[in-house]
């Protein structure tokens, strides 16, 4: 479990990005951390990974303080940054160097993910394209079988087929005791992949809810004539798409983009829905 308690963080002591932020992430779920550019997504996940330190408050993973970066903590977590750099070695050498650090590393799974991603198994890592490096990074992180996997903009640099392969692999590697966090501003990429949504903006958590809860409380669909209860809407070539309060019996498919925009542009409306009922 990840527990963020009263976390205050800022690039400078006078200018805080997060002010006494609280967030608890239970295991067994894939979390989508959504926010605009500069919303604080990367800062939040870096705090979780112990790469930056809070001014006050704490961030713990399974009871271990992130900022101390003790080996027991590092063994629990794998962090994939937005920009990936790999050493100038071949894949077998890379495995020989790094797999020994991870007790539950699954070499067979690693090569399987590479096959799904169509990455050649005997290439020199530093000669690969950005997207290929990212795929190897993701494959290694998943094969490492850590309890927590944090990915910063995981789909950046991946082409369309690779994004589909990425979804397939993430779906395969779900575990009841694992926390996967994917931070992105490309909300469409996470459609159908996540169990829980966290939307942040200007250092605040605007919404943190499971997909099920969102489905119970909100309805996503086309605007009907005479319906003026929408919380937010956008015009599409097929008509106006809206999100509105669910009356409790309707079912709809979660539209992350609509939800995200609703949270950003009509926060009181969204908060009212999630605080009542």
């Amino acid at each position: 479990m990840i527990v963020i308690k009263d976390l205050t963080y800022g690039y400078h002591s006078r200018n805080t990005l997060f002010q006494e932020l609280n967030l608890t992430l239970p295991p067994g779920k894939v979390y989508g951390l959504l926010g605009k550019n500069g919303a604080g997504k990367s800062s939040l996940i870096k705090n979780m990974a112990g790469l930056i330190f809070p001014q006050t408050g704490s961030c713990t993973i399974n009871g271990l303080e992130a900022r101390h970066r003790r080996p027991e903590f590092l063994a629990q977590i794998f962090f994939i940054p937005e920009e990936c750099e790999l050493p100038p070695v071949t894949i077998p050498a890379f495995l020989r160097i790094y797999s020994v650090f991870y007790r539950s590393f699954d070499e067979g799974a690693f090569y399987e993910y590479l096959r799904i991603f169509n990455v050649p198994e005997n290439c020199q890592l530093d000669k690969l394209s950005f997207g290929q490096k990212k795929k190897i990074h993701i494959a290694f992180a998943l094969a490492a079988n850590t309890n927590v996997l944090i990915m910063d903009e995981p789909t950046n640099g991946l082409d369309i087929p690779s994004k589909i392969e990425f979804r397939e692999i993430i779906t395969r590697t779900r575990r009841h005791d694992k926390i996967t966090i994917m931070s992105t501003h490309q909300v469409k990429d996470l459609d159908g992949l996540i169990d829980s949504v966290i939307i942040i903006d200007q250092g605040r958590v605007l919404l943190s809810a499971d997909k099920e809860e969102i489905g119970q409380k909100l309805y996503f669909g086309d605007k009907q004539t005479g319906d003026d209860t929408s919380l937010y809407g956008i015009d599409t070539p097929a008509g106006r798409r809206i999100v509105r309060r669910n009356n409790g019996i309707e079912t709809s498919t979660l539209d992350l983009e609509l939800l995200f925009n609703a949270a950003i542009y009509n926060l009181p409306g969204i908060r009212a829905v999630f605080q009542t009922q």
Partner: protein
Amino acid sequence: MNYIRKMIALNRRQYLEHWQFYSLLAFAITGLLFLLFFITWHWQESFSGGVGNGIFLIGLFGGGAAFSAFLYQDLRHPAKTIWLLGIIASAGQKVMLWIIYAVFLYGVAYTIIFYLVEALFFSIVTASQSTMTKANVFSNGFYSFYLIFVNFQLWLMVGSLAFHKGALIKTLLLMVLYFIIAATGNVVLMKAMTGESSITSSLPFNYFQFIHDGENIYVYLPANLQALINVSYNFLLPLFLSYIAYLKFTEKEI
């Protein structure tokens, strides 16, 4: 994984990822040493004795600085730093590995290369002054330069952890600046303390020199005090620097 096995795994990483650079550096140092030996041999009458020792020091410190600049390159790229910080080992183990590479492995490897090159060079050339030109690193207290080298490398490590950009240059400049300020400051201090205005040079915690009846007089610290200072410089300072590097590494943020 226990401490030793983790250190072995870290060492394997360090070696397998960078063996090409180590080989290149070894070749570069070999070439440089040959060149320096050739220059001093060709113009041997322009150089007085102890030239070999001078060449040894140029390679030891120059090559050591280049080696350090490469060793800490992970700290200059955020993605590489994140990867380094994420490796399942303690900050102490990672810093210890740097010390082993920067201080011990480089020191030993360089000494071996130096003596191989020297032996090869003087087997090729014949010169009456070759015995003068040859280095004698393990006599007359010359080994103390190894102890200075240890501190030099550790300062570079602390500098690499303290500065985000241009760490090597900044640290080297600071070292030079410190040396100048300490030496000139010490002269001023000695003049003020003794009232002797003819003090012309000094080295902090070592000596000062003044002119009396047209002769240079050197004043050294009492032997027991000097021994204490030497112990502090050569053994305590490296420990402090290593600890500072460890603390800086634990505080490293991306």
